[in-house]
Structure formats: C-alpha cells, structure tokens
C-alpha cells in the first residue's frame, strides 16, 4: 500500500497500471496532474457526471471489440471539468480496459479456454473474491514451472491472460 507523498514501492508503473494494484488510490499518481494550477482554472457550468463504460457482453463479443481504442477514449473523457473522484473512476475504467485487452490477447494466443468463464465474470462486473484467489493460485503455479525455450512463449501468453485477469478482477473489487 503506497504511503501518501512517498514513492510507492511499485513506483515505475504508470498510473493506468498502478490503479489496479492499489485500491486506496492514495498515491501521488492519483492526484490530478493539474492540481498545481487548479485555482487558475475558471469553470463554467456543472462538473461532468460519471458515465459508465460500454463493455462487450461476452468473450466472443470482446474478441471484436477494440479495447485499446476504448482505453484511449476513457482517458480522453477526463477533462478539466471532471471532478476528482470521477476522474479517478475514469482512470480505473481505462486500467480495466487495458488489462482486459491484454487478458484477451493472452487467452487467445495461448489457447487458454479454461479462462473464458473467468473473463466473462470480470466483463460482467461480478465481484468474486474466490475468482481472484483462484487466479492467484494459477499465477503461483505458472511461476513455479521452470520455463523452457520451446514452451516459454505459450507460458508467457497464458501468464499474460491470468495476470491481466487478476489485475482486472482486483479492479472490479476496488470500484
């Protein structure tokens, strides 16, 4: 857990990735980068309200959904008029999409069909602590298996699927 005003032990990760590792969001990466000159910003109208992201309904639909574009659009939803709490939610949404996009790639490239129900659970936004624990077990088993030249690519892609799902699952628990 990062200490406010101090460098997080995970520092080196950009905020869009940190968002998944830290529920509290106390890290300096979660304070708006424009807070230095906040009083110089003149606003007109109301602060913009949170609008939930559109997520594909299934693994199959996700396969033809561009998560990178969705991530980018979420980040561009953060405007000077976006209130801090809403802005952090958008950042977390972007993080979710980033990891769901990576998870999809990992699952497809490694042929890890066993992860599809888990993927769909995260897509639907279901909070499931057992799922997070199961993913942690798979991660730990994958790390125990010594990688070999011939199988490392598939192992890495499976790991990408599981690890990214784990990050996304944790994000669902945090928001």
């Amino acid at each position, binding site marked *: 857990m990062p200490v406010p*005003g*101090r*460098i997080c032990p*995970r*520092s*080196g*990760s*950009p*905020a*869009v*990735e*940190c968002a*998944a*590792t830290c529920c509290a969001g106390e890290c*300096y*990466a979660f304070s*708006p*980068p*424009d807070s*230095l*000159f906040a009083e*110089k*910003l*003149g606003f007109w109208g109301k602060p913009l309200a949170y609008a939930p992201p559109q997520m594909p309904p299934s693994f199959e639909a996700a396969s033809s959904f561009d998560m*990178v*574009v969705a*991530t*980018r659009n979420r*980040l*561009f939803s*953060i*405007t*000077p008029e*976006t209130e801090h709490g809403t*802005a952090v939610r958008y*950042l977390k949404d*972007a993080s979710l999409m*980033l990891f769901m996009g*990576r998870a999809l790639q*990992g699952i497809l490239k490694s042929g890890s069909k066993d992860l599809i129900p888990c993927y769909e659970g995260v897509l639907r936004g279901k909070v499931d602590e057992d799922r997070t624990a199961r993913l942690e077990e798979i*991660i730990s088993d*994958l*790390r125990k298996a*010594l*990688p*070999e*030249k011939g199988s*490392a*690519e598939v*192992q*890495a*892609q499976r*790991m*990408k699927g*599981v*690890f*990214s799902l*784990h*990050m996304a699952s944790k994000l669902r628990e945090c928001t």
Partner: protein
Amino acid sequence: MAKSLYENYKNFPKTDCGYCGNTSCITMLRRFCSGELPLSECIYFRAGLYNVNEFSCSPPVPRGTQKPSISYIRPCPTDADRISVEVSLLPPEGSKYGYFDMITLDNIFNHAVPGLRISPSLGIARLESEWGDVMGFSEGRVLIRRASNESSAFWQLSRFVRSLWAAVS
C-alpha cells in the same frame, strides 16, 4: 556501452505478461535500470530466449529538491497578443523515474489522436491545436505557446496533462 531506456525497450519482449511480477515490461525495465531487479526475473530471459548481455542502461538520476511550480506566464516572443506558460509538475523528491512515461503513452495513443505526437526516444509529447501548442516532457515540464489568454492557456494545459494522467509514474 549503456543505452537509453527506449533503446533497451525496443529490443525487449514487450509481452506485458506479468511473470516477473511487474505490471508491464516497461516497469520491469525501469527497475532493472535502477538496479532493483535482474533481467532473469523475466520469463524470456529465464528460458534463454533473450540474452542479458544485450541490455544495459545507466541508472536514472533521482530528481533533486526543486518544487512543482509555475515557471512563467509571459507574452509570446513572436506574437505579443498571445501568451506562453510553463509549469513544472514533479514526482516526489527522490523519484528515479521522471513524471510522464512516454513509452506507455506511445503504446496507448499510438499515433491515433489527431494533433498528438509522442516521441518516446526524446521523451516529448506534443499537441497542436488552434488554441495553442502544448508540449510535455518526461521529467514533468509542460508548456503552452500561442494561447489567446491566461485562462485559455491553463485550460489547455489542464486538458493536456489530464489526458496524459495515465502515464504519470
């Protein structure tokens, strides 16, 4: 000879698989460069698919004790009716990694936003628009030129740095 972070990154696996425990390959590489982690943590190096000896970088220099500040607000040298503003957004004291991670930005935005150009090798992001040209540097300096007035300048700066928030590290 030590290479830049970006030179090393270009030849890195870039799978972002998390085997090494980091959220992405760029984070692993930064931690390798700062001496925190050996490359053998990476699955590809461990499997012998990548050679440790092909990667080398100088440790990053921790930032000093300067404080975040508005460096200046002044008329543009080429057009006195317009103004330039520069701000320094800084990570916490002692941070080794700079402020904006331009490699992550390049991976996310990837030439897809009109007017936004990112150079991870130079550590610069630039957004050109009719309301002024904004430039951000990886160490956290951000400046706008040709803004029509002070409030527009700060609005554009805010819009720009909030769009890059994802890469604050």
